[in-house]
């Protein structure tokens, strides 16, 4: 068919003689090109933080790296582990299988298998004949704690107060970070920041985890209380109990550079608190809002709280259903690719599953007074409430349970007596003439949990109430006006999930009541102080915790 066209003009016959020459040349080049084709490769380029303090590669404890390839369902397909020597600038980490995968995870370990560095990239497609370049943010597995005029940063792998990481300054005078959350890719940490005196100046601040510097700012017209990010990082929900509303933020749009004001949608709700995200069986993104939960220190016996769960669809924000309960709920949690919400239901002492399609609740397991809850894979971590039977001899404990969803029986993984506090009767800087009245905690409630990657550590926010009865104490003779002392303290606690040991404790707000009256002058004396201000009458009340690459 081509040939008649090529030769149709006899005057151009001479030119057509060039054709065979061109064809032979092309074929020769092709044979060469084909012969040079080589096997593909994968180059992982690490995105590292700008400062040594944040950079995980400068940690002298790093001993090895593992590269883990998982499929779309999260099942591990291959793990390559190689030793690491400080000073290296390149690491050959073995062969990766050809194919499409859901996630690539890079983990740096110490000699005791502590996770010191973590990073993820997804999804990826490894080809046999092509070179693949992947950019992977690698970070230290920090926990971020909200509650003060800065976001506190804790290296969960460190046990000593000497290893303090610089906090993230909010640069918003007078404002407090009420809640924090991290993006699943580890690039950003979000803080809901507000001022109850001037609610209109509140913001959602998005910080780059590579520099701990502000990257985005979304104005809010109310003082926020809680913040959640969906498992895929697409949505963030900020809730404000006083303002009776939630704000849904389209994180894709925000991080993509859209005007922040255009990325939000407000929904009016009475008393919203925690939000959890699920995907319905039809693939619809849903959010469930826990409304009117139990207060941190509210016991079941005297509670009049009635909670409810509201289901809204995203992105429209339509309210699909509200289910009311005849009792107070404490917390909710969810996990990716599961349409159920897990509910901490302390007053019947159980963990339940709430179906987001039928709006029915089903009991999963009996757990002693669950007050906080998170879901990590197929495991539920449950923070509990413990009271001392005899405060004179026994301290109330931090109690944390673990519930595997396949098994109906929870395991108590941590039951550690909590630390003593003391009340300073006389304080004189110039001498050691002070009298400290020691007290055991009579009540400990774990009101928030966060699990860093690897699950060898757990971050808990803990409320403790101490009681001291000094009526029969010899000191009473000298100071007859002192009889009963009650302290209320709030702490961030880093726990070892293997031994149950308290590895870190940062005590925030603590106040004392003497003879049932608030004492504004003296402060609690932390007798086994790990970190935190020694005398703290109200500048830091830990209200939220999150772990980079962990849950939530």
């Amino acid at each position: 068919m081509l040939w008649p066209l090529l030769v149709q003009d006899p005057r151009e016959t001479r030119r057509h003689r060039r054709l065979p020459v061109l064809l032979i040349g092309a074929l020769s080049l092709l044979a060469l090109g084909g012969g040079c084709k080589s096997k593909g490769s994968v180059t992982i380029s690490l995105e590292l933080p700008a400062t040594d303090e944040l950079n995980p590669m400068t940690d002298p404890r790093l001993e090895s790296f593992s590269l883990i390839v998982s499929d779309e369902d999260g099942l591990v397909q291959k793990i390559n582990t190689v030793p690491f020597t400080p000073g290296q600038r390149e690491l050959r980490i073995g062969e990766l299988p050809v194919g499409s995968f859901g996630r690539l995870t890079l983990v740096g370990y110490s000699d005791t298998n502590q996770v010191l560095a973590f990073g993820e990239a997804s999804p990826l497609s490894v080809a046999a004949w092509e070179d693949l370049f992947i950019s992977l943010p690698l970070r230290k597995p920090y926990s971020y704690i909200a509650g003060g005029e800065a976001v506190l940063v804790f290296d969960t792998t460190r046990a000593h107060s000497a290893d303090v990481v610089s906090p993230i300054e909010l640069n918003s005078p007078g404002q407090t970070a009420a809640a924090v959350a991290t993006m699943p890719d580890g690039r950003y940490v979000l803080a809901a920041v507000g001022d109850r005196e001037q609610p209109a100046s509140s913001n959602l601040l998005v910080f780059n985890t590579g520099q701990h510097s502000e990257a985005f700012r979304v104005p809010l017209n109310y003082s926020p209380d809680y913040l959640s990010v969906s498992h895929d990082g697409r949505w963030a929900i900020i809730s404000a109990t006083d303002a009776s509303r939630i704000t849904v933020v389209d994180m894709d749009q925000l991080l993509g550079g859209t005007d922040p004001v255009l990325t939000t949608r407000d929904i009016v709700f009475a008393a919203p608190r925690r939000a959890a995200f699920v995907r319905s069986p039809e693939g619809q993104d849903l959010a469930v809002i826990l409304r009117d939960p139990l207060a941190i220190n509210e016991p079941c016996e005297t509670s009049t709280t009635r909670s409810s769960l509201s289901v809204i669809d995203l992105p429209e924000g339509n309210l699909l259903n509200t289910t009311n309960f005849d009792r107070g709920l404490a917390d909710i949690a969810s996990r990716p690719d599961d349409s159920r919400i897990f509910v901490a239901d302390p007053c019947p002492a159980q963990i339940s599953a709430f179906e987001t399609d039928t709006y029915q609740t089903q009991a999963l397991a009996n757990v002693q007074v669950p007050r906080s809850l998170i879901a990590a894979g197929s495991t539920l971590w449950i923070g509990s409430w413990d009271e001392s039977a005899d405060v004179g001899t026994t301290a109330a404990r931090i109690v944390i349970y673990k519930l595997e969803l396949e098994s109906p029986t929870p395991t108590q993984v941590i039951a550690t007596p909590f630390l003593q506090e003391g009340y300073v009767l006389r304080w004189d800087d110039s001498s050691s003439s002070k009298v400290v009245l020691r007290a055991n905690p009579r009540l400990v409630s774990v009101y928030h949990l966060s699990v860093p990657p690897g699950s060898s550590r757990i971050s808990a926010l803990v409320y403790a109430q101490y009681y001291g009865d000094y009526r029969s104490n010899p000191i009473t003779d000298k100071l007859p006006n002192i009889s009963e002392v009650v302290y209320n303290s709030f702490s961030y606690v880093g726990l070892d999930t293997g031994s149950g040991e308290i590895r870190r404790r940062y005590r925030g707000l603590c106040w004392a009541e003497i003879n049932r009256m608030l004492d504004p002058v003296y402060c609690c004396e932390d007798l086994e102080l790990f970190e935190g201000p020694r005398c703290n009458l109200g500048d830091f009340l830990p209200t939220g915790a999150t772990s980079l690459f962990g849950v939530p």
Partner: protein
Amino acid sequence: MRKLLFAAILLPSVASAGSAAHARRRAIAVLEFRQGVSAFPGFADRMAKRLRHLTGLRVLGPTDARQRLGDQVDKFVAECQGQPRCVGAIGRRLRVSEVILVGMSSLGDVVIQISRVRVRDRRVLRSLGHTAPVGARLSRAKLDGLLRRLMPRRDFIRYGFIRIRSNRRGALVLLNDKKRGLTPLPGPIRVRAPSAHRVRVKKPGYVDFSADLRVPPDATVTVNAVLPPIPKAVTPFYKKWWFWTVIASSVVTVVGVTTGIMLTVGKKPESVPAVIRW
């Protein structure tokens, strides 16, 4: 060269969109009632003005509403006390599909409550609250932000029309390299606006027409594509000897590459090496 030569034949004319297009635009009214608040004078009129600017909606402000229903309209709105059923009835008389009701009260600060009421079923579609100190000024950016939260996103998408005519019947019309039919087209083509587009009109035996144009919102740009016959002396490029030589070489190249790879490389590897760099 030909494009340049015939660029002068493009006769764009911008006019208001036709009545059919106009009929598709939703009509809304912005009404206001105040509970003893004199701050933010003309707020609803300002809001209506911004809505006209940002959206393709037909917007009636309080002034327009007074012209239609008389000065009593403010009294009617005040008597409604924000009740959607009552506000919807006013919207029905104004022949709009939605009413945006701006309520202002004072509780220390000025509290501005804005509700969108659908006239058909008197349903509140969305409600926003905003507080501002007395004497403050609501910036245009803030007002725009409120409107964007209040109205659905699709309302902020505006359209224009391109009407394409040609002196040749059966000429293929391409808009941004996408086929849109043969001339004469049944009507103008709706496009997002403001926007830029490339129009091409071609027919075998005639010189292609090409033009770049910008479409403003709610307007129609008319393009008269004149396609003169190709002069006979001109040989089409596909009859040139070099054209088919290049085609043949390309085909052989592709076949050769595939064959070369198949012969020289052989079995596909199951894994590839990985390296981490920083």
